[in-house]
């Protein structure tokens, strides 16, 4: 594989990360050495969904063998302040229970001891007296409750209730031929990375400063939140990430309350404290995607064109509003019309508190919930109007040629040709053949169905979208929030070799490899000439609040920043080269490890030699062309703050997805078999095809899990029923088929490399695509996830005779 004049981008080169990971030399948080004397934490957690804490007796635990300190709500409230809450409501959010527990698994006490075994021994010595309270588990009950409130400051369980109006939805509904509705309950689930949370914290009493290593993935908006809670300025809260992380998918955002908790534990213990979450803790109490109740009405013409939508969304964020919630509810604000040209939209968004684990980032983040409603609705439109579902999708798509397209709710769809993507998928994915297969299966009496989905996949979140939860006046008062600063630093060392640093906090997505490809292309080097460092240290590295690994922002935003930083270094080197080689700057080219005059291979100088010049002989480098270290901060201008009419461009880039699948339901067991799954992606320019395929198959597997196997289930009394990996079922090799992946590339005009995000799309499109197929197979009007055999068998089993 050679690429002389660049051309590394677009190739599936081997990942630089892999050799270490394959030989057991990864450096995940639990692999790293800690300071001598570091203590290990274990957490006592609530067995109740809702109870007042009458008393906690930690005396015996404090004196147990090896114990260094015990921490309860009392110490935490004395030493810190509540974590910031993202809505205007008189509620607090602590990383540990204070007076009251509100979900099973909520931390009650932290014990730190010389090892984890002893810490767990001491947990058993803590006596807690509870006064159980009724639990509010179902969001409907929480909404209806007039006496029982999760947070006393609120005189209800509704933390936010906002309505929005875009266009003229009332008139559109009044005029339309039909109103068609769906009502859904989207369940709770989580992407459960195989590596759990880990934190190593230390407190320096002399400088009143915290130093924390955690497998946190961003967004670094949480940094000021944590620093404020710890009552120190940001420069006294140093947060570092390990070189490797065992997956996140959003979930490792949720480690942040534990960072605060362990920082405080280290302060109380006077020693560094390490905590590695175990799987039971993770399932019960790390973080969950939101469950959501949605009623979605459509005003529909008789030809299937949807002219208006009315959304009523009730978002269940669990027991506390953890930052950045209620972001899950607002992430899709600019995309509530999906891939369709629908000009009138009414929205009511409520955020409700229940006795369940607090929610947070999870792959898809708001997309699965929105598309489940929207794409179930599109299927209902087809069924009720007796139209072909494909035709209904086609009639509503945003026209080709209309890009950049401003959606009714304020999103700016950057590029695409949805019609072409659909046509290609139908053709190359073999929809006709699948339909023939369905006909034949049905002729044989089998339960076979086909589902379709079209979706827009947003990426690179606007840091200001969540302020749509505030009224325009509240926003004016608070000051505008917007943008999405991406950063990259490129340094040339005295030997003339290049090192890149990015604050993208990778969780296994190969950022080091792709960043090296980008720089290699820009500077005429090989990727192996470029080293990339991705562990992050907020005290040393360039970062901003948007840093981190979420909203599929790497390729589009961080990759773009790397490119810009490389071009900046290149520009300076070119000026230096021009002086040395005696040619105009615009005739300098970078290729094959050399910097030379275009068309004159003899007049060239080795890259390393020229690049080192700023170190060894700055005097000969022209003014302003010192090429030592360049840091670029890049924030796209399109990401404006929500406007006075609440129009919200929630994301910078918008990929397009068109999926269809054929499924069969077993009459006897109710088991679902995916016969074929086709997924078409337009994610703009593809930087590394192998990694894009990996994102698609990985996202597909997550989505299949959410659709069929996984649910964080609670009993009516709030008991948590999915506490182990034998209860919370992840799909295995036997359950995940290989999807057929198709591509189209419509470069984004808004990103430096034309790339868009691709990592979350199938989590948005696949659950509803499978559900549509099941609804088709069984002739159902309504069906909620997960599509378990027990649930589906209700429709296939004969009615049982009482015997």
């Amino acid at each position, binding site marked *: 594989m050679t690429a002389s004049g660049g051309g590394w981008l677009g190739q599936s080169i081997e990942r630089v990360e892999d050799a270490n990971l394959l030989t057991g030399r990864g450096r995940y948080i639990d692999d790293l050495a800690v300071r001598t004397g570091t203590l290990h934490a274990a957490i006592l957690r609530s067995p109740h969904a809702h109870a007042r804490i009458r008393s906690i007796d930690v005396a015996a635990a404090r004196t147990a063998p090896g114990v260094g300190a015990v921490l309860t709500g009392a110490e935490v409230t004395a030493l810190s302040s509540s974590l910031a809450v993202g809505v205007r409501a008189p509620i607090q959010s602590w990383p540990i229970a204070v007076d009251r527990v509100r979900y099973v698994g909520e931390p009650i006490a932290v014990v730190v001891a010389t090892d984890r075994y002893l810490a767990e021994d001491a947990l*058993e010595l803590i006596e807690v007296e509870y006064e159980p309270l009724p639990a509010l588990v179902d969001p409907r009950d929480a909404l209806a409750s007039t006496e029982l409130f999760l947070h006393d400051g609120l005189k209800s369980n509704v933390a936010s209730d906002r309505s929005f109006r875009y266009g003229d939805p009332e008139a559109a509904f009044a005029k339309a031929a039909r109103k068609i509705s769906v009502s859904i309950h989207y369940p709770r689930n989580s992407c459960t990375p195989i590596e759990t949370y880990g934190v190593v914290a230390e407190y320096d009493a002399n400088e009143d400063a915290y130093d924390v290593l955690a497998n946190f993935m961003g967004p670094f908006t949480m940094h000021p939140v944590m620093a404020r809670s710890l009552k120190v300025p940001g420069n006294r809260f140093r947060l570092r990430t390990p070189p490797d992380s065992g997956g996140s998918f959003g979930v490792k955002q949720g480690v942040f309350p534990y960072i605060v908790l362990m920082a405080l534990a280290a302060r109380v213990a006077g020693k560094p404290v390490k905590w590695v979450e175990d799987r039971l803790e993770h399932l019960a109490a790390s973080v969950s995607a939101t469950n959501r109740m949605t009623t979605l009405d459509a005003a529909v013409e008789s030809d299937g064109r949807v002219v208006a939508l009315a959304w009523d969304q009730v978002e269940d964020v669990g027991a506390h509003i953890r930052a950045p919630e209620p972001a899950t509810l607002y992430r899709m604000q600019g995309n509530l019309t999906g891939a369709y040209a629908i000009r009138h939209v009414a929205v009511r968004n409520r955020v409700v508190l229940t006795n369940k684990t607090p929610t947070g980032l999870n792959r898809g983040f708001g997309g699965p919930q929105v598309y489940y409603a929207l794409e179930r609705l599109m299927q209902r439109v087809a069924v009720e109007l007796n139209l072909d579902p494909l035709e209904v999708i086609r009639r509503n798509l945003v026209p080709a040629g209309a890009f950049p397209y401003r959606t009714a709710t304020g999103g700016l769809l950057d590029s695409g040709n949805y019609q072409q993507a659909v046509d290609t998928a139908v053709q190359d994915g073999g929809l006709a053949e699948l339909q023939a297969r369905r006909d034949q299966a049905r002729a044989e009496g089998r339960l076979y169905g086909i589902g379709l989905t079209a979706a827009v996949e947003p990426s690179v979140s606007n840091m200001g979208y969540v302020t749509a939860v505030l009224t325009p006046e509240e926003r004016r008062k608070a000051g505008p929030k917007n943008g999405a600063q991406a950063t990259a630093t490129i340094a040339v060392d005295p030997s003339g070799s290049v090192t890149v640093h990015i604050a993208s906090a990778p969780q296994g997505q190969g950022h080091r490899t792709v960043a090296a490809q980008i720089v290699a292309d820009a500077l005429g080097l090989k990727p192996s000439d470029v080293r990339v460092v991705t562990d992050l240290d907020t005290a040393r590295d360039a970062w901003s609040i948007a840093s981190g690994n979420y909203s599929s922002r790497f390729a589009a935003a961080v990759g773009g920043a790397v490119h810009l930083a490389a071009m900046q270094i290149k520009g300076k080197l070119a000026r230096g080269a021009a002086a040395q080689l005696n040619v105009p700057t615009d005739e300098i080219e970078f290729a094959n490890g050399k910097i030379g005059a275009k068309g004159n291979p003899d007049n060239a100088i080795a890259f390393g030699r020229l690049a080192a010049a700023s170190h060894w002989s700055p005097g000969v480098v022209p003014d302003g062309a010192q090429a030592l270290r360049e840091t670029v901060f890049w924030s796209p201008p399109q990401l404006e703050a929500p406007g006075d009419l609440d129009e919200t461009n929630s994301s910078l880039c918008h990929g397009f997805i068109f999926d269809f699948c054929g499924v069969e339901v077993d009459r*006897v067991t109710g088991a679902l078999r995916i016969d074929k799954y086709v997924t078409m992606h337009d994610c703009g320019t593809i930087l590394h095809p192998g990694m894009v395929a990996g994102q698609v198959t990985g996202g597909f597997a997550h989505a299949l899990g959410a659709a069929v196997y996984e649910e964080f289930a609670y009993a009516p009394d709030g008991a948590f*029923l999915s506490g182990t990996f034998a209860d919370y079922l992840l799909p*295995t090799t036997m359950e995940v088929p290989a999807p057929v992946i198709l591509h189209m590339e419509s470069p984004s005009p808004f990103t430096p490399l034309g790339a868009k995000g691709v990592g979350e799309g199938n989590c948005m499109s696949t659950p509803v695509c499978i559900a549509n197929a099941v609804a088709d197979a069984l002739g159902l009007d309504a069906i909620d996830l997960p599509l378990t055999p027990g649930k589906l068998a209700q429709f296939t089993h004969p009615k049982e005779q009482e015997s």
Partner: protein
Amino acid sequence: MKPARFDYVRAETLAEAHAVLASEGGDAIVIAGGQSLVPLLSMRMARPGVLVDIMHVADLGGIVIKDDAIRVGATVRQAQLLAWPELAAHQPLLALALPFIGHAQTRARGTVCGSAALADPSAEIPLALVALGGEIELSAAAGKRQLAAKEFFNGLMSTSRNDDELIEAVHFPRTRPGDGYAFIEFARRHGDFAIVACAAMADAQGVRLAVGGVADFPTARDFGPLDGAALDEAIEDFAFDLEARDDLHANAAYRRELVRQLGRKTIDEARRCRV
């Protein structure tokens, strides 16, 4: 998730294992393959004073063909029995059922007798023992006894083994010419404990169906030569008699319907295999 403290004895002889069990009674727990016990230890749901590791007791090993049964010793791993070249010839039902126990990685350590001792209502080995009319060989310092499977399994994760006893071996009756067997299992995912598992055995006299995953322990019923609608009716009674429960993965009515449909299918298949 770390175990509480316990002593550990690696028994080298049967007498040594018996002695610890006799002196510590319920405070001593046998560890065999550890595939079920170690998670219970780590979750602190099992809290023994002493663990007795029996896997180094030479006398407890071996797969032995007896006149009418296969004797599987306490240290025989599930993978070892499954890989035994003569398995299908001597007892086809085991060859059909064993691949459904967990995964290759858990079968490589989990023992056949350990599964019987655990007595999970959904487990395949207890089901096979009940279906075939197998026996459990128990021994203690005080002596030995042998129990029929249907007497051994007596409740949810409960057996008639006394605290000072260990399972020395289990006996699976060997197949006889003209016997037919079938096994059908449905689980949420491949390798999970069964929601419903059916094992059937047919011979000249008639057919027997055993069901796991539904009642508190695997349960068998003989249906003689019944067939057609009469057989369906008899299975219907059986399905209700099992007193299925609701759980996270399936409700009672669902399990009953699986007993009806999969049970019938298993019986038909076992009969087909006879000829």
